[in-house]
Structure formats: C-alpha cells, structure tokens
C-alpha cells in the first residue's frame, strides 16, 4: 500500500513542480497567445495533479498511514489528522517530494522552458497511454482523462522546438544551449525507483524502462525536423552522464528555493484559506 502511495505522489509531484515553474511565465510570455498557451497547459497539469493528490490523500487516510517526515497537516476543527491535497502540496518537506529532476529545473529562457515541457510531455504521453490500462482503477481513470489533454501539450511543445531549432541562428543556438542544459536530466525518467518497480510488478504502473525507445524515437523525429543534431558530438545515449535522485527525494540545488516560494503562505499562515 505504501508503494502505491509513493507512486501516486511521484506522479502528482512531477506535475505540481513543473506547473510551479511554468506559472512563473503567467503575464510574461513572449506574446499573448503563447502566454495563454503555457498557462493553459499549466492548468491542465495542476488539475491532473489535484486528482492524484486527492487519491493519495484518500489512501493515506484510509490506511491511517503516518508518512514518516510529514508534518502535522492543517488542524482545521473537523479535519484533525486528516491529510488532504493541500497538506500534501504545502506541508511536505523537500526530501518527501519525489518529482523528476527535470521538472524542477529553472525556466531559463523560453527555449529552455519549451524544451523542458517537450521532454516531459512526450514522456507523460507515453506513460499515461499505458497507465489507462492500469490494474488500479483510479490511476487508470486519471490517466485516461489526462491523455486527451497531454496530446495537445505534445503538439504545442513539438511545434515550438521545431520553430526555434529551424528558425534563426540565434534561436537555434538557444535551443542547443537548452539541450546541453537539460539532456542530463532525461535519463532519470527511465530508471525505476523502488516504488515503481513494485507497482510495475503489480501491473499498476507501466514499465518506464520500456518507454525509453519510443521516447527517443519521438524526440529524435522532432529534433530532425528542427534540424538539430547532437550538441555533444556523438551518440545521444552514451556521451552524457545522467543525473538521478529526484524520484527518491534527492533534489538539485534550486529545488529548495522554489519549494520555499510554493509553500510560503501555508508555512507563514498555517491553515489560511479564502
């Protein structure tokens, strides 16, 4: 049961942390339509993460499980000791977040933001496509709903990678710089954490290792259309050391700063609501 909770939190955290980054573009997009596009994508992702957090909270409350490091959740009168979607997002500590390192990377410029979204959306699409048939009915339902939304995210982010890669010398240079920055965080997606391995064995989670081939194929198709070749001067698979740790709560340096901002209000004014 704990493994299912960790797995559900991992899925929810991926979306929440990426949306916290994306939300920083709200009102700052390069043009109005794209500002609206990235915030709409963010809204889809946060909606999906709410569904996942609500499910995780239900599992935690039903089993009366005490997550080791979780602080006491909101002590609202009728909700004492009950975990909910908000306490999971706002009151867990850094080490308890199980999101991919990719999701927490800074936005950088528009190219880096786009590329991050593209890498994640392609992965999320492949993962959820299979998760629709999960033995866990709730996860299957969440995935079946989300996949219709993620399809648009893949299309939109692919188009932008192509537009920048096959654009001017400057836009191409920016896309290549973004690839150099983010490629090292892509390997983690396909290395299962213990809770994933357990859920794969239970036919709840798709096997992430098996998604790698398809993911590479789609990414290379888009890169090829974007006239982008490997900035590492060789084989994409071999030349870069892949960072891991996020799935197990070991994050990159910038994560703490963003989490502080995300949780500031509830930490400062516990239980604040409007």
């Amino acid at each position, binding site marked *: 049961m704990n493994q299912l909770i960790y797995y559900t939190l991992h899925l929810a955290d991926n979306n929440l942390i990426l949306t916290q980054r994306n939300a920083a573009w709200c009102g700052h997009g390069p043009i109005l339509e794209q500002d609206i596009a990235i915030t*709409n994508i963010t809204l889809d992702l946060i909606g999906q993460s*709410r569904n996942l957090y609500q499910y995780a909270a239900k599992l935690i409350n039903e089993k009366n499980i005490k997550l080791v490091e979780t602080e006491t959740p909101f002590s609202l009168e009728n909700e004492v000791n009950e975990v909910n979607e908000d306490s999971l997002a706002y009151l867990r500590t850094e080490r308890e977040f199980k999101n991919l390192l990719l999701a927490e990377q800074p936005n950088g410029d528009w190219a880096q933001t786009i590329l991050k979204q593209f890498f994640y959306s392609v992965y999320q699409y492949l993962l959820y496509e299979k998760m629709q048939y999960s033995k866990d009915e709730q996860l299957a339902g969440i995935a079946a709903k989300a996949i219709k939304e993620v399809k648009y995210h893949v299309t939109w982010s692919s188009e932008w990678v192509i537009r920048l890669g096959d654009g001017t010398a400057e836009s191409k240079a920016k896309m290549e710089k973004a690839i150099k920055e983010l490629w090292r965080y892509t390997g983690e997606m396909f290395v299962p954490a213990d809770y994933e391995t357990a859920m794969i064995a239970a036919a709840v989670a798709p096997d992430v290792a098996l998604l790698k081939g398809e993911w590479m194929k789609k990414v290379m198709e888009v890169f090829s259309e974007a006239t982008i070749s490997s900035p590492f001067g060789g084989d994409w698979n071999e030349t870069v050391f892949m960072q891991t740790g996020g799935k197990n709560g070991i994050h990159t340096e910038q994560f703490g700063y963003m989490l502080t901002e995300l949780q500031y209000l509830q930490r400062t004014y516990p239980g604040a609501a409007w």
Partner: protein
Amino acid sequence: MPTQLQNTKEKKELTAIWQLLNEVCDPEVPVLTILDLGIVRDVRSLPQGKQGNEEGFEIIITPTYSGCPAMDAISIDIRFMLLEKGYKNFKITTVLSPAWTTDWMTEEGKEKLKTYGIAPPSHSEKKGEIAVHCPQCNSVNTKLLSQFGSTACKALYQCQDCKEPFDHFKCH
C-alpha cells in the same frame, strides 16, 4: 406503498430534478446548461437514511478538463438550486471515468454556442475532422491561431473571409 406506485413517484421526482439541473448554467459559457455540456452523468435515488430521513438522491457529475476551474462553481450552483427548491437530502459526486467528451454535448447546446459566437466542436474522434465554420459568416476559410484560448476547452481561430477572430470549442 405498493412498489409500483413507489416507483412512479420516484421516477417523477428524478424527472423533476433533471429539469432543475437544466437551469444550472456553465459559469464560463453561460448560454450552456450543464445538461447541454453533458457533464451530468446520472441522477439516482439513494436508499432511505438511517434516522428515517426522506429518501435522498445522488447527482453524478464529471469535469470537462482535469483542471477545469468551473467545476467547484458548478457544484455549488447545483447545491444552491436544489436547496432553494426545498431538497435537503442529496449528494453531489464527481467521477473522472469515463472521461468527458464533446460527443456528450447536445445538438441544442452546439446550436446555442454558435449563436453565442463560439464555433461548436466540429468533429468527434470517430467521425474524423470537419472544417471549423466561422460563427459570424459561416465561412470554412478559417485559420487556427492557437490551440489554447480563453478557457481550457477553447482554441483561438480567425476567419479569413470576414477577418473576425473567434473561439472554437475544442473537440475532446
């Protein structure tokens, strides 16, 4: 009460509730009722409560998009509407599966959208793609400006003939 009579009474009650639900509108596209949108999936009777409460019922709704911010408002609107009409013993349940599709939108709803100036969803995944008509001049000479519009369910188009930009309710 004989079962048959009971059933008829129950049926009448449920019909009355469906009619009331058809007066609750979507807060973001107020020309559409929640029945036009197809987000009310079922209304069913609940067995009598423990303390001999009057029989209750359950309303099952489903969100259009995972992150649709209108869902909370819709749920509250349903609650207020029913309380106002004197219903007390009911609950509203949100389900995610099966996932909402624009195929559940009524033909009447699609007409209302068009009159309102929003191009209705023009194809379903089964039927394949049909051109998006301009809601002003009905031209099919229209261009997609952005897959993402003013709300999660809409894309932004422009008519190449009358030049009017417009929202298209995305097929989903």
